């Protein structure tokens, strides 16, 4: 895995890419991938023939089979074509050997470059675009990071400095780390500089933590270099790196300790071309949110809107498992007129006050007539599945933008889809709220929201600690401890609860899609097989009701995704109820609790699943 290359050994590859170098116009592709493509192309031709033939003979069963095959071939073709675009990061890592070697010689420093994970693959467009920012970062480390040998000796460090380049996979993303054991960034120097170039006042500086100060070097027009050298210190630097990476959908994080070193962590998406995304609706338009930014979806029922959405420091926040999340309304971000559809499908202008500028009695602003009405409807439909009811519930998409999470309020949620990312034209490139566009199944275009861009656009900050305390203390006063549970149905009258936090996703499936090769229940899911389990397989409970569209609760177990099959979703609730773990304890069931006037069994997901 790790190749250590002392910088003293000269590198034969002397090709140095200039800053805006010519991009290579040809690509090396693995023969195996090419063969696979050929096979798939053949398959596609056969399927087309089959499809044409069956359409000609109006044989619907055959058309269906053919369309299934088209579906399969297409997704395999997609994967293979993506594979041809994947290139190892080693191609850029290796050129740094030369750069570090040359530079350290010029500067009279002794630097060793360690490279790890050069086999990690990224889409070629990403590889091309991170080359320049990374060169900049490595140059920075050599020039500013690693001290001269004599200074290193004085501070008790080994004479030769080390720069560690590392690439690895984490949560569907690629992380690239550039770590040096140099002088680190001195927050005091940063602070002095910030005041010097009057970016901030001294009182503002005092409120910042060291970590925040160090991150200021990512701001435009900031340079710490004492003197302008050939290599760095021209005042355009980290901010350019930052913008370039953000454009790619990546994030950059910086961690530095004076005298110990600096670590820069770059998070990058695997590919930019085809990504999974969630389609949401706001007003009359559909938008997509990249799945990588998605943390969870929260639906606040009308009767809880008042109690769960609060105002702190002039911004709206939602309380979610003891955390406060800043909330944005997509309409406000984009300056859209706010409309909503009533139950008859008519479109009205939304008269609700903007959640941001609620005045003292503003919490009531949510209590417009429609909501009260919806609330009543909601109560009536309580006993049934409530997913379709209550149009005035608040749909919140919790997203992650690098170092912070926030919630986006949208009108409604559609499906999650694999989307093909298309670049926006020059005119829209300035719009920071969009990362690109895509074409949806019906052929209409939709914009992709830039989750990081929106934070900058709205100058969103994570909710300050004191504000957090304020709300938490308020909560303690009310003296309640709540848990979030998903209530599901299996046998017609038996209710089960699952801790919401454990669930990755919920999928509605069709019973005909279920397969059981070798007696193991499974379903085709995102190009692979998802193992399915039933509650009654382990616990002594009634058998699952036979419904046309059962649900699969997808969760993580031992590092893989598995699914729990249930017949229906009842509700997601916050409960304060006590758990009785004696009366009805058995394998797979932790205990029972009274939820919504029903005896509900709490599932122990991990004992219900056996491989």
């Amino acid at each position, binding site marked *: 895995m790790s190749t250590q290359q002392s910088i003293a050994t000269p590198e034969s590859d002397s090709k140095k890419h200039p800053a805006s170098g010519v991009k290579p116009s040809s690509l090396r592709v693995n023969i195996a991938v090419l063969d696979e493509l050929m096979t798939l192309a053949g398959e596609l031709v056969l399927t087309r023939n089959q499809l044409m033939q069956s359409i000609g003979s109006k044989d619907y069963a055959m058309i269906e089979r053919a369309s299934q095959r088209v579906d399969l071939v297409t997704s395999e073709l997609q994967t293979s074509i993506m594979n041809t675009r994947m290139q190892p990061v080693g191609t850029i890592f290796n050129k740094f050997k030369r750069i570090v070697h040359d530079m350290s010689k010029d500067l009279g420093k002794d630097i060793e470059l360690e490279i790890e994970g050069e086999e990690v693959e990224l889409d070629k467009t990403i590889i091309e675009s991170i080359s320049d920012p990374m060169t900049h970062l490595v140059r920075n480390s050599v020039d500013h990071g690693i001290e001269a040998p004599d200074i290193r000796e004085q501070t008790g460090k080994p004479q030769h400095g080390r720069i560690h380049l590392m690439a690895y996979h984490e949560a569907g993303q690629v992380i690239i780390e550039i770590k040096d054991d140099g002088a680190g960034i001195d927050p005091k120097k940063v602070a002095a500089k910030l005041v010097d170039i009057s970016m901030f006042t001294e009182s503002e500086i005092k409120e910042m933590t060291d970590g925040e100060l160090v991150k200021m070097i990512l701001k435009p027009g900031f340079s710490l270099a004492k003197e302008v050298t050939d290599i760095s210190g021209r005042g355009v630097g980290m901010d350019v790196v930052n913008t370039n990476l953000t454009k790619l959908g990546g994030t950059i994080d910086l961690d530095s300790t004076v005298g110990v070193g600096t670590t820069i962590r770059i998070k990058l998406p695997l590919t930019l071309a085809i990504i999974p995304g969630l389609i949401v609706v706001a007003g009359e338009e559909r938008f997509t949110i990249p799945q990588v930014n998605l943390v969870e979806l929260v639906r606040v029922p009308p009767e809880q809107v008042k109690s769960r959405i609060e105002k702190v420091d002039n911004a709206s926040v939602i309380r979610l498992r003891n955390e406060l999340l800043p909330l944005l309304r997509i309409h406000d971000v984009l300056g859209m007129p706010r409309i909503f559809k009533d139950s008859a499908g008519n479109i009205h202008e939304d008269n609700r006050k903007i959640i941001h500028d609620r005045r003292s009695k503003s919490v009531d602003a949510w209590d417009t007539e429609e909501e009260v009405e919806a609330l009543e409807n909601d109560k009536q439909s309580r006993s049934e599945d409530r997913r379709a009811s209550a149009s005035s519930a608040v749909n919140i998409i919790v997203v992650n933008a690098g170092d912070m999470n926030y919630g986006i309020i949208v009108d409604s949620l559609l499906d999650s889809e694999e989307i093909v990312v298309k670049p926006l034209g020059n*005119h*829209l490139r*300035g719009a920071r709220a969009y990362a690109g*566009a895509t074409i949806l199944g019906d052929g*209409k*275009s939709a914009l992709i929201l830039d989750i990081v861009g929106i934070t900058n656009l709205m100058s969103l900050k994570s909710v300050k600690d004191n504000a957090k305390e304020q709300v938490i203390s308020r909560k303690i006063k009310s003296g309640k401890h709540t848990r979030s549970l998903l209530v599901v149905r299996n046998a017609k009258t038996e209710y089960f609860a699952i801790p919401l936090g454990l669930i990755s996703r919920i999928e509605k499936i069709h019973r005909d899609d279920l397969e059981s090769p070798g007696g193991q229940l499974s379903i085709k899911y995102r190009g692979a097989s998802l193992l399915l389990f039933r509650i009654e397989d382990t616990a002594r409970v009634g058998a699952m009701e036979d419904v046309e569209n059962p649900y699969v609760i997808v969760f993580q177990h031992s590092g893989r995704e598995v699914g729990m099959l249930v017949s229906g979703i009842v509700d997601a609730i916050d409960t304060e109820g006590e758990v009785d773990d004696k009366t009805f304890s058995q394998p797979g069931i932790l205990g029972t609790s009274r939820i919504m006037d029903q005896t509900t069994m709490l599932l122990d997901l991990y004992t219900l699943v056996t491989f």
Partner: protein
Amino acid sequence: MKAITQSSVQELTIFQVADVSCGLDTTDVQEINKHFEITKAYGAPDYLRGIINLRGEIVTVIDLRKKFGIETEELHANMRIVIVEDRGENIGLLVDRIDDIITAKPDMIEPPPSNVSGVTGEYFTGVLKTDESLIAVLDVENLLTQKT
């Protein structure tokens, strides 16, 4: 390209934007279509009507009325999107209707006045005087260069 067309006869596609008759060198026009599935791009400058899916390519649509500083209109059946190429990118121009294609000799085109029917002259390369009307010849590059 421009030098050649200027020395010979020029073919102009004539279209209407509010009260202004505009002409565009036909060689600059990629296609004209009636594509009304425009996805609005909220938060963008208001002359950007939105984006469309042009056979798999995302094309930005510019509302020429807005660009000219005229009140915009709801989409109607006569409206067309004129696709032009600008710096390697296709751009759609939303116009009120397409009128005609005419041929013009270079000497028929005069330099533009400071404004044509209230629209600033900087968007035009010249004005073509015909018997019945005044046609402003669009300067696509200038029109699509953002100044704000």
